[in-house]
């Protein structure tokens, strides 16, 4: 198989990589610049901006909040999303058709609109504290990812295996845990990671819900950039990239990345 490669195809591939990875290279390079401002190409070499991240307590505090909300929100979304995906796949024909659409709605509604309406309806009207409101917001925005990815893995599952388990004396609920869940484990893990990263990166919804003393890391980064123009933010971006790469590497090792693009 010696497919002749068109020069245009090579050029297009190069352009994609250039525009995709170029900015990341610039950010990474700026992070080690020994200047008080963002500089590219970097002038000198220093790791002090990485050190500075850990001296800004707002970064650590908001990272901790972001992490908690991402984990809790994803777990909540899975707790709702897995049964929902199961019901949609298993009993889809018996359910009204809007139900399938219902769980992807949060993707269709602009997040900034959703964030604002959540502010009006939950924060202001119900007078809920900031963290629970953030949690509700993040749970809702990651729910579609959970439902879709789990649905995709249920599509390959043969439900007669569950009926077989039931006929062999396993009660329906236990059969779900004994037979269904182990076979969609990969999909649940994939959904977890996708939802976790989505939540960790979210700006538009969080923007409306944060308040005095409570913020998320992406918002804190925005605020920092408004006030300071030093390479700390580039260094923090590098750390976040590393975190993402580590997460993806774990996924690749356990599931194979092909899982996402299938």
């Amino acid at each position, binding site marked *: 198989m010696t497919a002749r490669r068109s020069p245009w195809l090579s050029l297009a591939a190069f352009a994609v990589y250039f525009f995709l990875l170029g900015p990341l290279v610039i950010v990474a390079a700026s992070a080690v610049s020994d200047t008080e401002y963002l500089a590219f190409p970097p002038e000198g070499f220093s790791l002090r901006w990485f050190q500075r991240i850990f001296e800004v307590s707002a970064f650590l505090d908001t990272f901790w909040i972001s992490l908690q909300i991402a984990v809790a929100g994803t777990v909540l979304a899975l707790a709702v999303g897995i049964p929902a995906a199961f019901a949609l796949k298993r009993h889809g024909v*018996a359910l009204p058709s809007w139900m399938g659409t219902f769980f992807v709605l949060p993707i269709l509604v602009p997040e900034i609109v959703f964030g604002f309406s959540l502010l009006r309806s939950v924060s202001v009207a119900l007078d809920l504290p900031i963290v629970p409101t953030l949690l509700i917001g993040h749970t809702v925005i990651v729910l579609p990812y959970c439902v879709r990815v789990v649905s995709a893995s249920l599509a390959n599952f*043969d439900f*007669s*295996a569950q*009926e*077989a*388990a*039931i*006929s*062999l*004396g*396993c*009660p*329906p609920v236990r*059969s779900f845990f004994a*037979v269904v869940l*182990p*076979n969609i484990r990969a999909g649940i893990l994939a959904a977890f990671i996708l939802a976790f990263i989505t939540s960790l990166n979210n700006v538009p919804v969080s923007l409306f819900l944060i308040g005095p003393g409570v913020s998320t890391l992406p918002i804190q980064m925005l605020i920092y950039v408004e006030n300071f123009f030093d390479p700390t933010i580039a260094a923090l971006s590098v750390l976040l990239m590393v975190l993402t790469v580590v997460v993806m590497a774990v996924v690749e090792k356990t599931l194979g990345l092909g899982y996402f693009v299938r």
Partner: protein
Amino acid sequence: MTQSLSLAGIDAHYGRTQVLFDLDLDIGRGELVSLLGASGCGKTTTLRLVAGFLPPSSGTVMLGDQDIARLPAHRRDIGLVFQNYALFPHMTVADNVGFGLKQRGMAAARRRSLVADMLARVGLDAFAGRYPAALSGGQKQRVALARALVIKPSLLLFDEPLSNLDAKLRIDMRVEIRALQQAHGTTALYVTHDQEEAFSISDRVAIMEGGRISQFDRPEVLYRQPANAFVARFVGFETQLPMAVTARGADHVAVTAAGGASFRLDPADWGGLPDRFVLGARAEGLRVEAGEGGDGLPATVHTRTYLGRQYQYRADTPAGPLTVTGGMTAPLEEGERGTIRLNPEQCCILPAAA
């Protein structure tokens, strides 16, 4: 402990659509009964109802002397074998087979020995540690069979278990299923759309149509003496001619068919004929011979087809166009006139249409 199964007055609905109509079915202990019919006839619905995955709207499902119609599926003690095997992909062959025993709380050591025994019986002892993905279709179905049998169920249900296998394997597997069912003496209900499969494996066969049982009898009876036009067509009596008796003599009965053609039939061959009836005939039951006159149905043949053992013709007759067969010696030419005679072995008598 295997049990008899008795369905009485079963109605079932999917939503507002009624799919089973006042169904009665009795299966004796240790008997294998097939439900046979085209897709949509209600045979799989009946099986799912017995398994407990579809509640009947009315009627009773007696397993032994217990009505299980309202019992949840997991408490029915019924072994189920599916068309697509339905093995647990994340478990080894041994764990698949042992699953039912585990649900019954059996100790691991005893479970292992029962599983090993059962796997040996289906010839898969060497595969105990494999996962289903590493098995062929026939091996998967053997695992499914072992998994259903090892719990010593009151009743075994088969839902088209051989449909996904190739033709040769299908025949081997159906012999194997029959042998295992006989060896265990388990009562079994077997759903299939394949007539040969149903007839070869079953003690009795229920032919279903439109959510009702058309006829329930031994395969020999169904094949030779169908009770109605639907079953007759199902077992190959494609030609169905309404007839009326015009005269009864000591050694013959004179009948006329639609279109005015008349026959003389020998009562020794045909038994007691009602005054009006429908004659069902397979193509082999209508034999065309050269020459006119005598007792047969006059015909003009066209479209001759060579089938190897015999010729088949389309023939124009006073009773309409028919498919008939002719012998290998002196075949008729297309357009030639001949006479159709009846072979009682390949014909049946059906009640006249109301």
